[in-house]
């Protein structure tokens, strides 16, 4: 690869020097190059939410963002969600409510929920619907996702 493909990424507070096609979606950079496998591939078109990460704190579908468009941004993945404790408050709520079944979509679910709770300390049912309806779950864990968000919200108050 020529030097034009060298880039520096900021993921979970750490700088990574990478070399790859500049049009490579962030998802595949995370998974195949940085080996941060917690972010999942499922649809590739931003229609399921399994690949959700935070870009400067905002939830985005990492399958649909070219890596060279976000070099100046701070990326947070599921691996970097918990800043201090072993588990973030959302992850703790997910554990307490026994949310995951197969678990494959849950990184994306948790990243969407974490953003919701950061911006809305007391989300209504409708707020939860709006924030979470872009995240699909084939196992059908939606009822427990809702409960876990409510649980996390009350533990944050």
């Amino acid at each position, binding site marked *: *690869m020529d030097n034009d493909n060298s880039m520096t990424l900021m993921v979970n507070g750490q700088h990574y020097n990478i070399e*790859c*096609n500049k049009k*490579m*979606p962030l998802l*595949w950079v995370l*998974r*195949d*190059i940085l*080996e941060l*496998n*917690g*972010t*999942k*591939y*499922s*649809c*590739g*078109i931003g*229609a*399921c939410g*399994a690949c959700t990460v935070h870009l400067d704190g905002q939830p985005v579908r990492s399958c649909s963002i070219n890596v060279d468009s976000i070099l100046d941004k701070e990326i947070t*993945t*599921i*691996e970097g969600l*918990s800043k201090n404790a072993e*588990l973030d408050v959302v*992850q703790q709520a*997910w*554990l*307490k409510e*026994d*949310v*995951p*079944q*197969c*678990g*494959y*979509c*849950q*990184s994306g679910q*948790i990243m969407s929920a974490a953003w919701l709770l950061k911006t809305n300390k007391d989300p209504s049912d409708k707020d*939860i*619907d*709006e924030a*979470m*309806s872009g*995240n*699909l*779950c*084939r*196992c*059908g*864990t*939606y*009822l*427990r*996702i*809702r409960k876990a968000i409510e649980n996390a919200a009350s533990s944050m108050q």
Partner: protein
Amino acid sequence: MKRRDFFKTTSLAGGGLLISTFIPLSCNVPAEQSVSWEPNFFLRIDTNNKITFICSRTELGQGTSTGLAMIVADELLIDLENLSIEFADGALEKYGDFQDTGGSNGIRLLWNPLREAMAVTREIFIMAAAQIWDMEPKDCYSEQGLVYDKSNDRKATYASLIYLAKTLPAPFEVKLRNASEYKYIGKPVIGKRIKTIVQGKYPYGIDVKLPNLVYAAIERCPVWEGKLVSFNDKKAREFPGVIDVMEVPSTEIQTSDFKGGVRPGVAILANNTWVALEAKKLLNVNWDLGPFAEKSDSDVEKELKEQLKKPKTIHSDFNNASELLKASNKKIVATYVSSYQANACMEPLNATAYHRGNIIEIWAGSQGPAMFRERIHELTGLPEAAIISHNLPSGGGFGRRFHSDYVEEAVLISQKIRLPVKVTWSREDTITTSKYHPFCVDSWEASFDKNNKIMAIGYQGTVSNTNGYRPYPYSLPMVHFNRLTENSGRLLPRSSWRSVFAHPWILSLECFIDELAATQKMDALSFRFELLKEAKVIEQLMEVWVGDNLYPKKLLRTLESVQKKSNWGNSGDGIFQGVACASYNTSYCSLVFDISLVDDMIKIHKATAVVDCGLIINPSKVKAQIEGSIIWGLTAALKSGITVKKGRVVQSNFHDYNLLRIDETPTIQVCLLESSDAPSGAGEVAVPVVAPALLNAIYAATGKRIRKLPVQNHAF
């Protein structure tokens, strides 16, 4: 060896056979103290007191690995916290039919052998301690991974007893623990895997990394039974990161359609997944689209319905139904149609294989690690002993990962390059060129006497026979006629799909029962009560997989309970209810939907489910399975389904093969009935009742009988 024969042998011998395989016959030489001990194929104990449950079943999200670990902990008398879980490689010779995971049998079939294996191990440790302490085993007991001397405070860890334990013979008889002594079974347990999942660290097949790994994506023939003519890969090869492009030969679908069925294709080999998926789009492939190039699902519907007009033959006849059907000209007929469905597991199909010439290693999330190993032996000619089939957790399976084609592809490519290859299916691949729940046409008829009393009912449709997985529980005489099949083979290859043929069977049966209730001017629930109260126990043990007969009284108990829980008949103004009930193997479920009409659109408010699945191991996981099954069933009833035009699947991704979302999910109340019967499985029983309960509620609300799935537009 036929899989079924193996099952028969092991089930007769129980855990004892599995145990004795590992007990050395000569006990003269104590083994090295540093070596761990595998007293049976499910357990390894290390000298540092690490105890590992080797889970033969696949973890697909149903929680089987946690449930089985609870059983191990309760019978071996150890702390669940201290029990590690590993997944066993595919091994028919070790696990027989206790490995490949389907039919909601994960826990049910292991319930006895696993407990026996653990009880034997526990007793051997007691015997070992007694021998060291020079006392009788009856004067010792075990608790939390330790053996105690009853008379004083002497104790020994299991691990410290290994060196002697492994020389001792298994006792002839062991006593299993009583239900009242269980510490874990029956209580909600959140397994260790959940903590790993919420941290994004659970290892799925798609996460496999190996030195020198080659990433592959395959362009497959878009029409089933088509062939590869030629391809131009010039542009694809120019894409940076592409290593090679090669043909993937098709494999013939086998009589057991779990094996074979690799479509002809062209594989891109690349240095990462994205390059492979992108370069695939640059291929120019010339296909011979074969016999189905002009065929659509509407043609399948037409030809199946045409067959309904032909003379019927009887497959099975219950209570002289065929004669009773003929005895009257007063009849009604109702024909139900349900669409193709894709499994659409959130983790797209993928498999990694490394064919080293004399050894093949496979890493895949699969429901059939043992069957796949057998299949790769058939495909390559290498002995099964040279094939290592690692079983990783799956991001959903729902039946699709019981079909080996995606693993065969990885082996076929690796065979050519002798490097480890990971084949990843794009989402589009999983929707357009996969295997599918079949298109079904299912027709019921009933005859009435001159007083309008129902004499008998008859079924003809795409379900081949009545059995434990597509049961008939009622006292009303019923005849099952010859099956409807597609002319010149299936338009799309078949996949198992959560609840399999129970979905069309129960859809049509439970909607038709509702139609019959209306002819008798009876309440839908009371009508079912009548038909179940008189029903006799139904033999269904003819299939080895089926664990028990069908007890209509058990189904009745779930119906009576759902009547109360759903507040049947008193649900309030503007709320309409529909009910359906079914058994599935040896589990039973009744379901009621509460719906309303808002601007002529249906709104689902609530689902109330009552389930009898025998002894409940882990109530949190059982409830999760019922909740998930109802959401699964609603997707099939209300969303797009798979349609086919000119041989090609029309849908391609989640934008047009949509799944139910959080904002569309109704309140779900699950009630699990107490039972001391053996655990009987919870992953599928609640799926087939969903569509009929919903359609029956729609009838209650609108007076319209919907007989085709999915329900289009939801407007009435």
